[in-house]
């Protein structure tokens, strides 16, 4: 697949602060790429460099084959952007805003169709300064789509949205993908990255600490799968003695780490053989969120580690 975004050894300094510190990655055309990281990690800085709104200090960046800073005007015709904290003219309504962008880009979007896609039809005629935070975000998304962009940069598009609105935005993102567009997404909702993204990169203190598909990252950085029983600590001791697997007991819960597929059957037979009381077992798998919290926590001198283990 062709490359939409290519970043090599990118860095950005704000005075003495190195906000982005030599990152490299590639986004292929048609992919949804999720860029994750804690507050202040350097996500917005990176996105703004890709959009041609900020100038890189070092390294090289290419978006749709263009240099974003020096070729910004041509690039902007082909990309759609929602900035983090999107703001617009206070007295202008969403319908007028879409018409305005349509005239500027010389496209003829149907404002009502576009606004209903982002679930903003009911506020099409309300002035921007009367919209709620989530409604403003939705207008931002609608405006990002007025020029039929090849690549969309969405900086936290769902922050502050309620669960149904968030899912509506997810649908829009899936549609964009199905139309062959590339989506570069930043988010703090790990679940969102897990359901939407083909590729994920986690950035922390300006460096990429993990990258790949969500599954690759979970496999590489997550703990093994576990079987969890509702049972007394005695069961944990029993299993530990017989199976040679890691068993953890806490709050009348017993977790057994699985190393191989066949381990699950061995554990179940051993539990049955123990004659000890137990109730409903479940399988537990690390999510992207568990991995994220662990990785970031480990780097921040273990401050968050105990939480990640919970």
């Amino acid at each position, binding site marked *: 697949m062709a490359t939409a975004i290519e970043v090599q050894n990118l860095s950005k300094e704000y005075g003495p602060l190195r906000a982005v510190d030599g990152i490299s990655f590639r986004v292929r055309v048609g992919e949804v790429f999720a860029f994750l990281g804690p507050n202040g990690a350097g996500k917005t800085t990176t996105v703004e460099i890709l*959009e*041609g*709104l*900020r*100038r890189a200090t070092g390294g090289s960046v290419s978006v749709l084959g263009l240099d974003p800073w020096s070729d*910004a*005007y041509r690039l*902007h*015709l082909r*990309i759609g*952007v929602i*900035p983090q*904290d*999107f*703001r*617009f*003219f*206070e*007295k*202008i309504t969403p319908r*007028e805003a879409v*018409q*305005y*962008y349509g*005239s*500027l*880009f*010389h496209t003829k979007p149907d404002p009502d169709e576009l606004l209903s896609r982002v679930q903003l039809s009911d506020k099409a005629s309300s*002035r921007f300064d009367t919209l709620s935070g989530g409604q403003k975000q939705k207008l931002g998304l609608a405006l990002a789509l007025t020029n039929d962009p090849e690549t969309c940069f969405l900086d936290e598009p769902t922050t502050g949205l309620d669960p149904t609105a968030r899912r509506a935005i997810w649908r829009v993102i899936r549609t964009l993908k199905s139309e062959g567009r590339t989506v570069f997404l930043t988010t703090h909702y790990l679940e969102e990255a897990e359901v939407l993204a083909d590729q994920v990169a986690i950035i922390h203190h300006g460096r990429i600490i993990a990258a790949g598909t969500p599954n690759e990252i979970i496999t590489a950085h997550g703990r093994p799968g576990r079987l969890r029983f509702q049972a007394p600590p005695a069961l944990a001791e029993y299993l530990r003695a017989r199976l040679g697997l890691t068993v953890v007991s806490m709050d009348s819960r017993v977790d057994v780490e699985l190393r191989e597929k066949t381990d699950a059957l061995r554990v179940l037979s051993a539990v049955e053989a123990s004659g000890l009381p137990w109730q409903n077992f479940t399988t537990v798998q690390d999510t992207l969120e568990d991995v994220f919290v662990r990785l970031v926590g480990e780097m921040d001198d273990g401050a968050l580690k105990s939480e990640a283990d919970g």
Partner: protein
Amino acid sequence: MRLGRITADLKIVVRSYLRNPVALFFSLIFPIILIGLFGLIFSATGNSAVPLTVLNLDHNSPVSVQYLAELNNTTFVKVQVVNWNASGFASQLGRNGDPVGLVIPSGFEASYLAHRPVNVTVYTNLADAASSGEVLGAVQGVSSFFNLHASNGSAIIGITQQHVGSQVYTYIDYLIPGLIGFSILTSPMFSMVDIAASYRKEGIFRELSLTPLTRSEWLTSHILWYVALTFVTAGIMIGAGVELFGAHVTISLGLVPFLIAGPLLFVSLGMLAGSVAKTPESAALIGNIITFPMMFLSGTFFQVSLFPPALQSFAHILPLYYVIDGMDQVMLFANTTRALFDVLGVFAAAIVVFLLAVRFFKWRDE
């Protein structure tokens, strides 16, 4: 530059403006208040008695003094004795904006006492028929009284009537071009400085930089809007001045270039001031430093020709001075050559400032 994008942006500008009550107040109601306020302050004194400027060439002889006292007693006129040069009396009247004048010749007392005919000269103004009528009436009345008193009714003191130039200008006449200049300056300067700083802070320029709209298109749409507003404001001010205070101004096409060049200059200057500043606070400060001296010293409320010489030279470096002076030439003095000189200067300055503004104002940070 693309017309379609300028029109699209102009629509946004106009809508934002019309939906903002404060902005509407300042462009539509404030001009009337200004004209009303200044008009009232400066016309209040002249309402009852017509001021009559008198040159007494009879060296304050008792008879002439008594004659003037009788004129005052009629309450139709209020005598103000001056000691100007006799030959420049008429033109000085015109410059001062005095509607009527009276000259008492030397030898007035001697002639009167000897019952020899003598003429006083009344200078009146065609444009101010009411004052002229009152003064002529008063002078005639008092002269008859003196004639009767001295000599069984034979005419000693006669009256020669003369017209002063073509026009006499009152404060309100000067005030109209001055206040139009005032709003040409203040309304774009204050709002463009504010827009430059707040749009940058709120990320609206960044947002616009993601569209094909260019900075010169954006600036042009704002200039077009302020030109339109200026026409409306000027119309309101002229209407209010003429209707409420009977101002005499010529309304001609010659005004149009000023109503275009002025906003072009000050929209660009406001944008330039707002762009070189780093924060909204320093933007406001720079804006005020530029605006305030011009607001008072360019002939807005006070005629520059009445300033001390040093202040006059300072006024001559303020661009607004040429806007107002040019409008004075068009609306009051019909001096086309000087108006042309003024408007060319303003246009030249406007184009330089426009280019500087486009150059200095940035959509995006480094």
